[in-house]
């Protein structure tokens, strides 16, 4: 890895697409390297972790969904799915597996890099600060936005960067309803985008912070309005 450069791992089985993406990403100033299979990509990520991973869904051997799950098991690297499939099931399944974002091929390189930058901004805000840390408390749930920590009943909860940003956004506006569009723009940095991103991340977050995710006590849905975090 070249120090000072942002590394992007592209897991894509189509040689021509991979090559073109690597060329274009390098042009945009990223250090980009590719993997033709999920296995190869997972090995590369363990050897020298990239700052972002782009994953195709249709891969030979281990498919994209499983690849995302395994990547997510190791760390919270931002994962963006780049797939030609725009079926709702695929999008939701990929996000539930742990992807942070989803773009449908063909995506313009400018848009892809804009999305990576938005994920980067979020990643930065999580950096710990050496100052007294205000903790937001919701029953047995504790969120410390600046320490980057979430605890439930005193036990740390592992959340991804995107989930953490989402939780902080809701926690900082405790008791107030945030619409899906507001959350999209504040957490993902999109002016317009797919609201399923929000729904799936909220679902994943509930699995981690709610005692009974099917009947959420803190992270509640307000039909037709959006989401709210309450005590």
């Amino acid at each position, binding site marked *: 890895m070249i120090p000072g450069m942002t590394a992007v791992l592209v897991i894509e089985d*189509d040689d*021509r*697409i991979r090559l*073109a993406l690597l060329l274009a990403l390098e042009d945009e100033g990223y250090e980009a390297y590719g993997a033709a299979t999920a296995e190869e990509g997972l090995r590369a990520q363990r050897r020298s972790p990239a700052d972002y991973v782009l994953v195709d869904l249709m891969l030979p051997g281990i498919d994209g969904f499983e690849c995302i799950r395994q990547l997510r098991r190791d760390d919270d690297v931002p994962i963006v799915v780049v797939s030609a499939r725009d*079926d709702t099931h695929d999008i939701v399944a990929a996000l539930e597996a742990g992807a942070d974002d989803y773009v449908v091929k*063909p995506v313009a390189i400018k848009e892809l890099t804009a999305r990576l930058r938005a994920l980067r901004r979020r990643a930065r805000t999580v950096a710990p600060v050496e100052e007294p840390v205000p903790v937001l408390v919701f029953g047995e749930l504790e969120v410390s936005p600046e320490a980057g920590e979430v605890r439930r009943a005193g036990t740390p909860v592992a959340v991804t960067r995107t989930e953490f940003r989402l939780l902080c956004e809701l926690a900082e506006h405790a008791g107030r309803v945030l619409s899906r569009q507001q959350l999209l723009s504040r957490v993902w940095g999109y002016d317009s985008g797919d609201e399923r991103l929000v729904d799936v991340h909220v679902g994943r977050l509930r699995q981690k912070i709610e005692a009974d995710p099917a009947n959420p006590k803190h992270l509640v849905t307000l039909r*037709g309005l959006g989401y709210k975090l309450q005590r």
Partner: protein
Amino acid sequence: MRRLGLRARVTAAFAIGALLLSASMALVSYELTRRTLLDERERTVLRAAYYDAAVVRAGLDTENPDAGEALRTLDTGTGRRAVLHLNGDWYGRAADNGLTAAIPARLRELVSAGEPAVQRIRVDDQPVLLVGVPLSESASFYEIASLRELEQTFQVLALALTAVAIMVAGSGAALGWYATRHGLRPLTAVADAAERIAAGDFTTRLAPDTDPDLTRLSTSFNRMVDELAQRIDRDRRFAADVSHELRSPLQTLAAAASVLSRRRDNQDERTATAARLVADEIDRFQQLVNDLLDLARSDQSVHRQPVDLAELARQVCRDRDLPETMVRLAEDTPATWRVDRRRVAQVLTNLLDNAERYGAGPVAVLLSRTGDTGVIEVDDDGPGVPVEDREAIFDRFVRGRAANYRGGGDGTGLGLALVAQHAAAHGGSASVSDRPEGGARFRITLPGSLS
């Protein structure tokens, strides 16, 4: 006139049939009863009249006959009255009351000729039976028996029979209504199933073994749904396959084109022009693939949800670097509509695109309502749309005439077709007219979005 429904027709047929049957039964029984009772009465009256006639004859058969005396010996009760015609004079027991005048001349002739006769006549509007018995050449005896009681009996009988006939007809109608309800119940099940299928639930099937007479209907219905579901699934898979197969190489092209355009400064003019053409056409191709896929999918059901339409319209304007002040919400119209967000966003995008491309730029986006129908109007300042093109421009691959002389052709020709399809998916329509200040006004209606 609207034709009556099957159920109403069957019910009416049952009612009419029952009425005909019961009415003819009633008529026959009325006639039979009437005739029997009348015959019975006639026989009784005749017997009594002959007996009385014998008594009177005996009374007259003396040396010094007294007609009055002879009549007085009769026991006629209140129901009968007797008169005697003797040597051209009338004799009765009481005042005549025009009784003798009521005796028809024809009957009198018959009796005078020595023939006994019976006739039903009306006297003082009362039905009576008149019996004439010849006593001798110069004397005839007449007896008049009232039939009033019998007539009353007939009236009661007729009333009762009419009531029964009406009740039977009513029961027939009720039976018809009940029978058709049972008979049509399987059809109701078919209609329910068809509605669920139309709403997009392709797992709906009819129970195959409900009624042996309807097995054919349910099996062919189920087979139809099976084939429909398969075909829709095939179409959907085809669309997904096509999208995948077209989008993957497009990704390579898009990424490669961006590499080329980054190096524009190092290219000679011809190469740079060629690279720009490639990049532009890739954009158009990409848009075409997306539009085609959207069009292929636009018959899928609408996912309505509350959407702040004013905000959505402003956002679409922002995305296209248009002033968001052109979005106006009518005073009586709420900002939140129940619509399919993705579809309406595309409607707005395509209309604004169209206005930019062919209409010299959009000048206003007006959101208003007519009842519970949301109305989106997009105005432009261009040349307007000729009347003869106003329907055709919503067809696929039709571009405005303006595109020809401007040498454009960067559109896919599917934008307005998609607008029309999305409007239709909401149960509404898309149309274009002249804007009063010049230019075109595109109007989209979305029924049920403000209920």
